[in-house]
């Protein structure tokens, strides 16, 4: 067998039955050109090339110039080819390495997100206890609405308790999700929205709102330009701390109403908002998180971000400043959504005195995801409460008219 045939057979064997040079077309390699033996071959060939070039002028006349040129070209091709393949293999290896680095980085991000958003120790137990016991209360009350005043009042009391139980669970979970010490006291408030139709239908309520509304520009006509108000009701607040066996109301809260202005077309275009921090703004936007209130609600930020009078600005600053009790806060609008129809019930406000949350947005997202069933249950209690309260006032009005 001639050496050429042998080479052809060897190449056929190396290319695994494919036609000769198919490996080159497929972008495969016969050898690992970056391996030490091939590096030695490259070195020897380079040296040979140097020798050939050096001895160009000293060639014996017996050697034909064509032979010399052939040797030179073949050596150049071999050295160039080895270098080329080394470069291609190196690039491929680098690409693989870059892909691996990206994959590791992605996995690391996923793991970090998982750690930041996974329920903290005991959070699931807290949730199960809060949800199942509150649901038990809801089942126990049933859907039947009593017809007598005493029954309605009793029902109203238990429905309020249901809302407070939800708030209690939400406050406990906030401490756990923010990875704050278990001794941290956390507060949860429900601010009920009362629209102008509610106020117009109840003169007593309207007067109470006039007497207790705060943060309004027009003191003579405080309801001017308002779509409604948010009721800060001490009875609808809880503070949860390690030392308290039973929840108690937030003692820093005094009853008041917060103005919620009518939404204007110009609001969307304006860079400044007319809705006060935090509850009215959350009622307007949906959900707002402040992780460091003392730095984020300041004279400068109010001047830059809000379109409110300087008197109201001072009141807001005084409210957050004198209370000094809000570190991080989440405001979340509660809406009853049934097949495209929505009724806005108010705002859930959860906060603690300490600033900053360890895991920021991801932790709050995870917290609200876990709490969603509890929030939905709370909406049911609130809706029942509104209906029972309306039935009670109808009954009282009927009794008064009879008298």
């Amino acid at each position, binding site marked *: 067998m001639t050496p050429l045939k042998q080479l052809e057979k060897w190449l056929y064997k190396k290319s695994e039955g494919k036609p000769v040079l198919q490996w080159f077309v497929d972008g495969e390699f016969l050898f690992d050109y970056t391996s030490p033996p091939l590096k030695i071959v490259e070195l020897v060939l380079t040296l040979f090339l140097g020798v050939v070039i050096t001895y160009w002028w000293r060639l014996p006349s017996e050697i034909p110039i064509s032979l010399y040129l052939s040797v030179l070209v073949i050596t150049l091709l071999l050295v160039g080819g080895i270098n080329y393949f080394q470069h291609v293999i190196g690039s491929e290896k680098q690409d693989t390495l870059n892909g691996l680095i990206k994959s590791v980085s992605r996995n690391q991000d996923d793991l970090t997100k998982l750690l930041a958003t996974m329920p903290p120790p005991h959070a699931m137990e807290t949730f199960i206890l809060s949800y199942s016991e509150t649901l038990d209360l809801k089942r126990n009350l049933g859907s039947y609405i009593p017809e007598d005043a005493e029954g309605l009042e009793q029902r109203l009391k238990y429905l309020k308790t249901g809302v407070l139980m939800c708030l209690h669970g939400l406050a406990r979970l906030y401490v756990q999700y923010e990875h704050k010490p278990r001794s941290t006291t956390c507060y949860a408030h429900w601010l009920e929205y009362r*629209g102008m*139709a509610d106020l117009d239908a109840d003169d007593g309520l309207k007067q109470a709102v006039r007497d207790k509304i705060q943060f309004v520009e027009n003191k003579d006509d405080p309801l001017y330009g308002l779509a409604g108000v948010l009721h800060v009701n001490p009875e609808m607040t809880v503070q949860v701390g390690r030392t308290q066996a039973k929840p108690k109301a937030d003692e820093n809260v005094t009853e008041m109403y917060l103005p919620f202005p009518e939404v204007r077309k110009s609001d969307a275009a304006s860079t400044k908002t007319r809705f006060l921090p935090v509850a009215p703004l959350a009622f307007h*936007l949906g959900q707002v*998180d402040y992780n460091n209130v003392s730095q984020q609600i300041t004279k*400068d930020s109010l001047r830059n971000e809000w379109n409110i009078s300087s008197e109201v600005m001072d009141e807001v600053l005084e409210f957050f400043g004198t209370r000094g009790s809000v570190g991080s806060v989440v405001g979340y609008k509660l809406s*009853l959504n049934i097949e495209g129809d929505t*009724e806005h019930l108010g705002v859930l406000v959860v906060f603690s005195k300490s600033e900053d949350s360890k895991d920021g*947005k991801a932790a709050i997202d995870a917290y609200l995801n876990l709490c969603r069933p509890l929030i939905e249950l709370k909406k049911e209690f609130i809706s029942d409460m509104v209906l029972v309260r309306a039935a009670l006032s109808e009954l009282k009005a009927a009794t008064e008219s009879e008298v």
Partner: protein
Amino acid sequence: MDKLTTAERIKKLRMGNPQSAAKIVERYYEKSQAQMNGEFVNLRDNDHYVARPDGSLEKVAEAATS
């Protein structure tokens, strides 16, 4: 302007109808299928804004449309 009180609107909302119930069931299975196929299903009921260090707000997520 809607002159109904909150109680009246809630009563109206809660009256319900069988067609809505059927739609809810259908929607649930559609969303479940999407989740099982690895698709992201937005379940938010509120737009989400986060305060920056200077107090300005940044919208970080949108509420689900349906």
